[in-house]
């Protein structure tokens, strides 16, 4: 259930929730309230002035209507002047400065983020370059090893071939020598056999004969 109270605002009687009034209604109601208050205040001030007159010079904390009105006037004029020419513009200036600072801060943060990004990119590039250099060095090392291995293998092959040839030559020479020895032995045996047949041999002669034959072979 809602109720319109004095045309000022609408209020739900159960929940006591209200909606704000319009600016026009608000100003009108405030003006009414202020004029009522002013009437009441003037009545009170007359009463206070009477009390003040009785207390004057006796009580240091007595109410001073003149001072109250003077203070109110001075304070309101001061407030209006400062609001218009000092504190109002200062609040705006502080807001402006705050906005500028925030914008500058945002720009700085963006620059810092960009710089960090750039640094990360450069670090990545550096790491890539290092990796590439490492790879090149590894490749070079592998190639060099391969070439060295090939050279060593070739050298070993050549050495083996050389050795084979030398051995073959030695074998050939040995074979030739043995052939010659065999031929000489055969002829010597034949010669020896001829001599044995010619004279009878006792064991001592036989041994001397063999020694002589060997010595001949050695001389030859």
């Amino acid at each position, binding site marked *: 259930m809602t109720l319109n*109270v*004095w045309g*000022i*605002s609408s*209020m739900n009687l*159960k929940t*006591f929730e*209200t*909606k*704000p*009034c319009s600016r026009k209604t*608000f100003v009108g*109601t*405030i003006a009414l309230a202020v004029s009522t208050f002013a009437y009441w205040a003037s009545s009170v001030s007359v009463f206070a002035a009477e009390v003040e007159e009785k207390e004057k010079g006796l009580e*240091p*904390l*007595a*109410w*001073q*209507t*003149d*001072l*109250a009105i*003077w*203070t*109110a006037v*001075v*304070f*309101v*004029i*001061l*407030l209006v*002047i*400062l*609001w218009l*020419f*000092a*504190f*109002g*513009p*200062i*609040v705006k*200036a*502080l*807001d*402006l*400065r705050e906005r*500028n600072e925030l914008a500058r801060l945002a720009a700085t943060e963006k620059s810092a983020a960009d710089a960090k990004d750039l640094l990360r990119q450069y670090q990545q590039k550096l790491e890539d370059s290092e990796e590439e250099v490492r790879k090149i060095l590894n490749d070079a090392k592998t190639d060099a090893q391969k070439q060295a291995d090939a050279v060593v293998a070739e050298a070993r092959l050549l050495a083996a071939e050389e050795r084979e040839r030398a051995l073959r030559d030695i074998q050939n020479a040995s074979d030739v020598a043995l052939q010659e020895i065999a031929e000489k032995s055969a002829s010597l045996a034949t010669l020896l056999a001829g001599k044995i047949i010619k004279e009878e041999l006792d064991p001592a002669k036989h041994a001397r004969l063999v020694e002589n034959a060997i010595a001949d072979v050695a001389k030859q």
Partner: protein
Amino acid sequence: MSGELVNMGELAQHVSDGSAYHLPEFLGVHLELPTICGLQLTRFMVVEVAVAALMILLFVPLAAKMKSGKPLRGRFWNLLEVFLLYLRNEVIVPSIGKKDADRFTPFLWTVFFFVLFCNLAGLVPWFGASPTGALATTSVLALSTFVILICSGMKKFGIVGFWVGQVPHMELPLALSIFLKPMLFVIEVLGLLIKHVVLAVRLLANMFAGHLVLAVMLGFIAATADKFALWIGVTCASVFMSVCLNMLELFVAFLQAYIFMFLSSIFIGMAQHQH
């Protein structure tokens, strides 16, 4: 203490309002303030106008310098800006909230510096006592906070909405709520009024009591003037204590201005964010 030489009435005249300036006797000047259109000017009125003029002279040029939004140059202007920024960022914004704070910041700055300079005026020799040592001044300042609070609250929540909003939200049966809520409303509204009365009385009591203690302390010197040996000792002790108390008064001047503004911003914040 010699009652013939000093009485509390005379002492009170040095810390309360009056229509004449008590300058030293050797100057031979007795400054009686004039009456304008039936209104007798008093020392407090003169001090208030001087304070207002000083504030305009300080803050209007400061605003002109800050208009560009660039940082200020010069120690003095930076000092003023430090005050303003501290009050705004550390007191007003936390109390009222970022969204609404800037609407009330000029008023609260004005209240703070007006109270501060009025408090400090009491420490300036022969300038007159602090206007904040008068109930009329502190009441008007508290009333200004009250009016700002009520008007801003009613503007935000509507006239009925603001007053109804003084009652905390409670899930009560309708019959009980009709009985309890009006009682709570009366208590809350009385609390609202009392808070502002206390705001005025707190500032008044602190400033008046401080100045009165200082005056009494110095009054001991006059009270013992007829006994030379005692007078020497009492004078030294009184002057030393007065210097210490003046230091304390200097601190109290800032503290009370801060408390007045701090409580005002809290009250306004409470009106902007109801139960």
